[in-house]
């Protein structure tokens, strides 16, 4: 009880520290900077914090904290703009928001979706802070109770959401998730360093693929291409329905869902080593399971937006626990945050276990600055959402080239290689096919995101368990089947069983008609071939390095099995069966005035030109010709539009100290920035 009694004066000290005009001013400044960076997909808090780092040395601690927290806190809020309005998952915090947020925008209800998302974010952030204020005092033993078997089970719980999102043909969803995991294992294994589906001759592959690129490729590119072919606006509605006020009303009607998801967010965020990747999916799965009428998920169900958005800001708060109490950052931006905290003042704040004993007032200040930053950021965002939602009424052909510009830039930031752009294109192509033939893209993304944690936790838990079993069977079972693990297993089993039963009604990809047999079969065989290659490739790794080969072997095996069964079913089924779902046959894509390949070629041309002339020159050529030829603008208009877009891009890159992809031209001539 003493712990709690001591905390009350610390809490009031914290509020006295925070509620100074100067501190609030710095907080707002941080929030505004964070919002500007956050609307840019793929940059996130790391870029912003790095920008602030040099100013932190010797700065008054509370002011420095206000500035940094203001910036970090709003990134998961503002990246909602990109995911709802354009279907671009800006960061791992907005993967699941895309699923229902973007369809809502297509229905002309972008403002409603946005404000519901922001209200949920705000509520989640505040709930997270309240929960943490008490929880942080007793968090340490609870966090330490989450060992490797527990973390493995949480990861598996996240993976089990595949069952819900698998789509109408469960085996195809499973194969998509398997493919996602296999793509996630590409590169050097973290345990033994063996290469999987990669060679040292292509160092890019040896590094593995980054989440930003996979997210953009699998979700954003197929949507952009599809919309572009139809040559309409994002919103199909005659006029925009659903004002920002409706969104807040939606959130209020689902406040308990929002409450539960924010608790899920804090709790999962607290566990070090998991990060935010699982939270979204668990919250989305929970939203689906607790909704009576599930038929709208994937087509624009507001609860599909409220759930994940409530959890992801709460998760940021939860993530403070491992950061502050253990000095172990839950994300890249938190790592920079720790580094920056040590620079503040005379370095008296030591992140680590001492934070609770010596700096409880600072700890509380951090927690509540985060909450306050959420409030400020959300108010800004809600205020802006009505206006920004009008973007969805603009003819998409005029928006698309700038989206191509944004996603290419975002992809390049992840690895600073030209190969980033090639990978983006390749994954975009994969995404287009997954979408076309109704293979669940969310399942693929879940598989990819959780691939490396599953592998890591599985191998390490297995090793420790085998030591324990050697000691005694009891010690082994006690380790593997702790109460937490058992609870998690039950939740997982229940959610898989419920999920499979419901999956048929939840069309993560919308309703798709079946067409001819040939194209869907060719794609299936392509997936099968890749899985077989991956199996053979993993099989060739030495048995001494079992840790590096076991997961690819098992997953490739499962994927091959699923594909074979679907293949047999396909041979027997009639061509109107759901197995042969094909968007090119019926619906919007089939009726689109422009073909797939000619549209994709525009994007390909941008990348090819970049390879020759570097990004900025290529972009200028691309924008002007696209706007003129495809957009039908007059040359002068096309020029002005392009110049504005490029100027914006240059300003952002300049402010953040970022480079652009170079091409062949740059390897012969040294040009001044931004043409580098």
């Amino acid at each position, binding site marked *: 009880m003493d712990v709690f009694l001591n905390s009350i004066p610390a809490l009031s000290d914290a509020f006295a520290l925070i509620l100074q005009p100067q501190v609030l001013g710095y907080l707002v400044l941080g929030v505004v900077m964070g919002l500007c960076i956050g609307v840019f997909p793929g940059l996130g808090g790391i870029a912003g914090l790095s920008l602030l780092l040099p100013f932190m040395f010797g700065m008054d601690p509370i002011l420095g904290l206000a500035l940094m927290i203001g910036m970090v806190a709003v990134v998961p809020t503002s990246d909602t703009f990109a995911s709802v309005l354009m279907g671009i998952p800006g960061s791992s915090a907005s993967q699941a928001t895309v699923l229902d947020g973007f369809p809502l925008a297509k229905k002309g209800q972008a403002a409603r979706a946005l404000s519901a998302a922001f209200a949920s974010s705000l509520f989640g952030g505040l709930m997270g802070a309240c929960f943490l204020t008490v929880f942080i005092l007793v968090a340490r033993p609870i966090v330490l109770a989450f060992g490797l078997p527990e973390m493995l089970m949480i990861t598996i719980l996240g993976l089990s959401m595949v069952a819900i999102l698998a789509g109408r043909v469960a085996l195809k969803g499973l194969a998509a998730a398997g493919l996602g995991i296999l793509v996630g294992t590409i590169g050097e294994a973290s345990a*033994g360093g063996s290469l999987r589906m990669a060679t040292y001759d292509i160092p890019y592959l040896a590094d593995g693929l980054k989440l930003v690129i996979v997210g953009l490729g699998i979700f954003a590119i197929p949507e952009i291409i599809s919309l572009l072919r139809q040559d309409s606006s994002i919103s199909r509605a005659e006029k925009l329905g659903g004002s920002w006020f409706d969104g807040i009303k939606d959130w209020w009607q689902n406040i308990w869902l929002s409450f539960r998801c924010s608790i899920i967010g804090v709790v999962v965020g607290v566990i070090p080593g998991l990060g935010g990747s699982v939270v979204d999916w668990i919250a989305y799965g929970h939203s689906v399971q607790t909704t009576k009428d599930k038929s709208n998920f994937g087509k624009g169900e507001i609860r599909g937006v409220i759930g994940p958005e409530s959890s992801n800001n709460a998760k940021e708060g939860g993530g403070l626990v491992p950061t502050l109490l253990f000095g172990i950052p839950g994300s890249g931006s938190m790592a920079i945050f720790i580094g920056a905290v040590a620079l503040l003042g005379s*370095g008296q704040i030591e992140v680590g276990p001492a934070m609770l004993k010596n700096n409880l007032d600072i700890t509380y200040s951090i927690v509540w600055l985060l909450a306050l930053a959420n409030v400020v950021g959300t108010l800004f965002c809600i205020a802006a959402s009505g206006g920004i939602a009008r973007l969805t009424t603009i003819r998409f052909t005029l928006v698309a080239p700038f989206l191509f510009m944004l996603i290419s830039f975002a992809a390049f930031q992840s690895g600073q290689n030209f190969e980033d752009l090639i990978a983006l294109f390749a994954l975009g192509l994969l995404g287009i096919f997954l979408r076309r033939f109704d293979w669940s893209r969310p399942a693929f993304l879940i598989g990819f995101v959780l691939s490396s944690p599953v592998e890591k936790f599985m191998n390490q838990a297995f090793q420790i368990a085998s030591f324990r079993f050697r000691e005694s069977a009891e010690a082994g079972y006690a380790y593997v089947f702790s109460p937490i693990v058992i609870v998690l297993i039950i939740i997982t089993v229940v959610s898989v069983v419920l999920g499979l039963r419901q999956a048929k009604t939840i069309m993560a990809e919308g309703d798709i008609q079946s067409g001819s047999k040939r194209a869907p079969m060719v794609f299936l065989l392509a997936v099968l071939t890749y899985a077989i290659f991956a199996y053979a490739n993993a099989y060739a790794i030495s048995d001494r390095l079992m840790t590096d080969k076991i997961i690819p072997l098992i997953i490739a095996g499962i994927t091959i099995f699923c594909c074979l069964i679907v293949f047999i079913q396909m041979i027997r089924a009639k061509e109107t069966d759901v197995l042969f779902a094909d968007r090119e046959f019926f619906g919007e894509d089939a009726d689109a005035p422009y073909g797939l390949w000619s549209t994709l070629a525009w994007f390909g041309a941008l990348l090819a030109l970049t390879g020759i002339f570097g990004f900025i020159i290529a972009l200028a050529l691309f924008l002007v010709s696209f706007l003129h030829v495809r957009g039908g603008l007059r040359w002068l208009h096309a020029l002005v539009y392009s110049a504005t877009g490029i100027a914006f891009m240059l300003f952002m890159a300049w402010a953040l100290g970022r480079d652009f992809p170079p091409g062949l031209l740059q390897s012969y001539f040294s040009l001044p920035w931004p043409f580098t």
Partner: protein
Amino acid sequence: MKFLHKITLAVSVATMGFAAQAEVDLAGETVEWVIPFSETGGSAKWANFFAPLLSEALPGQPTVVVKFMPGAGSTKGANWFQKQKNGDGTLIFGSSGSTQFPYLLNDPRVRYEYKDWNPVMATGTGGVAYLNAESGAKFDGSANNLQDINFIYGSQGATRLDLVPLLAWKMLGMNVEPVFGVEGRGDGRLMFERGEANIDYQTSSGYLKGSADLVAEGSAVPMMTWGSLDDNGDIVRDPTFPDIATFKEVCEATTGCETEGAAWDAWKAFFVAGFPSQKIAFLPQGTSQDIIDTFIKAFEDVKARPDFAEISAKRVGKYPMFTGNAANEALGKATSIEQSAKDFVVNWLEQDYGVKLEK
């Protein structure tokens, strides 16, 4: 490439007889300091400590950002750095003992060559091994009472810096099972805190930041440090931890452990390669001398700060910092090793862990 442009300018000015160094100006640039480990380890703390100081000391006060590129126990990041050619001063690489060891042991994954790189600064560190409370109670300055305990240790890999603790524990006759694939020493410490591992070691900075608190609250007991080298090359107590015995002392007190012979020589050789000049900052190959000199000068300025001794003792421990030529010498010690020591370790790694390396 804007910078390259500036450099060509700087070089042409230099040939005209002006001091080139003054022309190196990094104003508005972002210098990336790449660390081939995750955000949680000692190298991260090391780089995060130096980055802002370096930023202040470099001409033009560029932003210095620490970037993490973990993977394959740091060979991934080092292989990447080997391919970098942008010697325009916007990229530094921080290697650690875990990068040095695979290089010394001809690990097949190593695609990097230290001789190609340009060292600008090196610092040493120490290491502290500690036990959980239960086995700590049995520790009496020797490992005699620790022989029957099954120890589990979260390890980054047997060919890494972990080789030094693993070999030391083996020489003491202790039964330590490593769990491989841990991504940084911070993750190893967490495994220890969760009770999944019951023995751990941290480099000095990691120990000061995380483990010292565990010792203070009684859930960990320090066992030994690796010690520090005096001017004669003998192992003495670590100045950062004068109260903790060295491995040498513990070994002498333990039945069956000898401080001479093949095993000891090999352990000491790898300790010297891995700790007293453990962390080295490099500029990529092909960097011009002006830029190298600029960075050396900057690190010298950092070292000359009046408050340097004070702030560094708290953050990274009391160890010498080498710049310029001294850094080159430190690199030489860290990347060369006697054949006999290497043979011993290669045999041991194959016997105990099945790791096949070329001799």
